[in-house]
């Protein structure tokens, strides 16, 4: 083979040329609008052979979307059913409690008011939240505040259109509660650091873990039977009494909307 022909057949020459053309194209693709038209043209042209794949892909995506939306709807329905059940239970217990009270001394109306959380200061993150319901909506100090039927705090300061709610995690929060399974009574309070505690349980009593803790009948301002959470770990005894942690039933660090139970006898 002649030398010139061999050179033409040399892959290095062709490879080098191809790379140079590729680099030129790459440079042009940043600057020449015609390249963009070429890209669009290729996409348009390939649309025909790609059609079955594109069609199948869109169908698959739609199918998965349909499954996911179904699951999402199912989850939401379950959450709403649970919330509905809790509210019904709370309402029934509240009504029962209300009937036992002296009608003349108690303002009775079992309304549940929905309120939005307006503010939560970082310095008092576990102490209080501000909600957009106030005395104009019949909110008074002492009203229980719930999240999906679970107690999260109580109103302690009310303005005309807003109110401050003291959370169950606050050191200054304290209400009587009962352990549903054993009927043991104790005092629920917070430690100001995100924990909720059940205090004043006699040292010799051993309570079953994960028992439901609900508000007790002892306090006039709180209807009995409002769920608070589940019994958590046992703490060391002190002075003949022991405390337990409570695993709150409500997401206390993610409160955006709450329900306020208005009416009833408040402090």
């Amino acid at each position: 083979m002649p030398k010139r022909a061999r050179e033409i057949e040399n892959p290095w020459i062709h490879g080098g040329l191809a790379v140079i053309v590729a680099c030129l194209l790459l440079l042009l693709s940043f600057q020449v609008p015609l390249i963009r038209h070429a890209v669009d043209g290729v996409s348009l042209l390939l649309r025909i052979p790609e059609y079955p794949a594109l069609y199948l892909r869109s169908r698959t995506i739609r199918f998965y979307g349909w499954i996911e939306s179904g699951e999402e709807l199912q989850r939401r329905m379950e959450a709403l059913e649970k919330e509905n059940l809790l509210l019904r239970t709370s309402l029934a217990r509240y009504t029962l409690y209300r009937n036992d009270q002296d009608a003349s001394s108690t303002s009775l109306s079992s309304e549940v008011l929905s309120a939005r959380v307006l503010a939560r200061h970082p310095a008092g993150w576990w102490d209080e939240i501000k909600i957009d319901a106030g005395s104009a909506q019949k909110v008074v100090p002492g009203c229980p505040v719930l999240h999906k039927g679970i107690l999260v705090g109580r109103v302690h300061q009310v303005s005309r259109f807003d109110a401050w709610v003291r959370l169950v995690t606050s050191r200054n929060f304290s209400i009587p509660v009962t352990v549903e399974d054993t009927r043991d009574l104790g005092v629920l309070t917070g430690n100001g650091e995100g924990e909720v505690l059940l205090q004043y349980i006699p040292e010799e009593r051993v309570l079953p873990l994960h028992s439901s803790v609900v508000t007790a009948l002892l306090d006039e301002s709180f209807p009995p039977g409002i769920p608070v959470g589940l019994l958590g770990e046992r703490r060391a005894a002190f002075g003949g009494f022991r405390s337990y942690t409570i695993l709150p039933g409500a997401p206390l660090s993610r409160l955006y909307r709450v329900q306020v139970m208005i009416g009833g006898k408040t402090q």
Partner: protein
Amino acid sequence: MKWCLLLWYLQDVLQIFGEDYLFAPELFLGAVFLLMSSGKYDHPGLIWLSFLGGVLWDARWTGLIGMTAGTYSVLATFFSFFWSSMPDTGRNKLTFFTFLLGCHIIIGVIRSVLVLPFQDATWMFFLRQQALGLPLIYMITRAAFPRDGMYGAS
């Protein structure tokens, strides 16, 4: 040539399905290597074919015309040189598989670095490409050496 067309199309289809999750395995380059190793086609023509396939790929997917074309051309040239300089005894299934896999990894890395923003998810695209590409590369190797054992004709 039909192999190149077919595998380019298959690569395109895989990219359509895996657009959000992976880079499609480089089947087209595998087809070019397969034809080069067959000895029936002239290598310069195949180098330009790889360039053309790369241009089409860039026009369809990356938008950076020349990126894939240049990479394919360089790798095809290296393969041509490597395959031509190798003695007959060395041209076996294992060598072909290793070279194709190496090129596949190189293109994957180039795509990861140039096409996507540099973050953890990018490497998942790369890893998925390699994971999906491995059996396909093996199948191309089998097609290139249908009767041979791993180290040559048996």
